[in-house]
């Protein structure tokens, strides 16, 4: 092995980075070659010079501040599992809020807007004259009298109307329930699950109609919007408002013309115009309007 091949391995051997076999070869060559020993000594001096000259720099004082300024605060990160009131109100009450909204939108008609069913307690309306009013003024006055259902807890003997102070007892008569399943006119009938299910389905259908109107409803709005400002304009451009005339000239026609519809017209029956005057044949139009007199007064010209 010559000196050029050993030269590459000398520094690696000094650093202890060679495998044992090559390390032994380099040591054997250095014992016999004086030039390579001088080169190895130069490498050793160079390494000590480099280690003395290459010292670490002092970090600038602003580096720590700059780094920590970019590190977010732990509160901003938000540790998992923290039970702060902010987290409760931001996430914990979402299902509760959704349930409350559902009850308001769907459940509210069940309790307040549901029409009276035939199985409800009899609400009898009768037309009776109001004794406090003048007979002449009480003509046609309708007074609704609601009769409460007879209580089952109290005996019937206690409901004696001998005092005469209860006005609902005047001329009122409870009608029997029209429900076939009703056993007693005063008692609450059985709940029909089929009817309740239909009502629930209809309620949900109405809710969907409000939230997402179907196609025919949108078409209805587009086709039957008579107002120009409400009519849909292609391209989304609003209608350009009519500007008043800027000149001092008097407008030719101030009266608003009635709306007319051309229902028929007759083509001129001129076979072949021989002169210039014959070419100016008039075309007859038949106009139809809801106000024919105004059409005649306005004087349409074609």
């Amino acid at each position, binding site marked *: 092995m010559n000196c050029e091949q050993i*030269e*590459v391995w000398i*520094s*690696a051997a000094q*650093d202890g*980075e060679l495998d044992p076999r090559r390390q032994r070869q380099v040591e054997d060559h250095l014992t016999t070659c004086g030039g390579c020993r001088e080169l190895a000594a*130069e*490498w050793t*001096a*160079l*390494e000590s*010079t*480099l*280690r*003395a*000259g*290459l*010292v*670490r*720099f*002092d*970090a*600038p004082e*602003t*580096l*720590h501040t*700059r*780094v*920590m300024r*970019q*590190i977010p*605060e*732990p509160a901003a*990160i938000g*540790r998992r599992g923290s039970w702060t009131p902010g987290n409760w109100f931001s996430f914990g009450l979402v299902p509760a809020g959704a349930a409350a909204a559902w009850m308001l939108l769907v459940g509210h008609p069940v309790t307040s807007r549901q029409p009276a069913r035939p199985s409800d307690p009899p609400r009898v309306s009768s037309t009776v004259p109001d004794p406090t009013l003048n007979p002449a003024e009480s003509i046609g006055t309708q007074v609704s009298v609601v009769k409460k259902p007879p209580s089952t807890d109290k005996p019937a003997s206690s409901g004696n109307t001998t005092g005469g102070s209860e006005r609902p007892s005047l001329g009122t008569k409870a009608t029997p329930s029209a429900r076939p399943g009703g056993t007693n006119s005063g008692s609450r009938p059985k709940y029909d699950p089929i009817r309740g299910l239909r009502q629930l389905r209809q309620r949900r259908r109405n809710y969907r109609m409000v939230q997402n109107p179907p196609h025919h409803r949108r078409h209805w709005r587009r086709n039957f919007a008579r107002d120009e400002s409400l009519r849909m304009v292609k391209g989304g451009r609003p209608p350009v408002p009519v500007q008043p005339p800027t000149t001092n000239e008097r407008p030719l026609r101030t009266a608003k013309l009635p709306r007319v519809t051309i229902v028929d017209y007759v083509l001129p029956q001129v076979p072949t115009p021989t002169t210039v005057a014959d070419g100016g044949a008039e075309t007859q139009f038949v106009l139809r309007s809801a106000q024919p007199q105004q059409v005649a007064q306005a004087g349409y010209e074609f």
Partner: protein
Amino acid sequence: LHGTDDELVAHCLHGRREAFSELVLRHQRMVYSVARAMLGDAHVAEDIAQEAFLHAYRALSSYQAQGKFPAWLRMITTRLCLNHRRDNRREVAWEDLSGHPAEQTDGPESRLGEWEQRGEVRRAIDALPCDFRDVIVLRYMEELSYDEIARHLGVPTSTVETRLHRAKKQLRLLLKETLV
């Protein structure tokens, strides 16, 4: 906060910001020195050091606690320096030498020769190509092995060995007067 680097990393992962502050204080000198030695510009080195710490903070969850946090941080810094050099494609000389003896009023006069020799060494290393400079810095300033240098630079170990040999040959010529 006290403890090893791995314990501080564990504190950081639990949301303790001051643990990362302690890590920055411990290793900012190493990170800044590597960046400045490889890039040669103080301002760029400070930016790279800041970016290295931020990269490390974002990647703390991927750090495996084996007592090698400085090596992991040095690897990040080295890769950022290589990326910066690749993106800029220009060589920047060391514009100043910190720790001038004239600025140290109570320093002994014997440190003047040491500083001059240090300046000569840095100027000689500055004259090297960037590939040779990297291996010299990582070998003699960071005391890394050939395999570690190869992992940092992304080159084979044989390439590191060759580059070191060629860098030493150039430095021997540049520092002939100093070595004598």
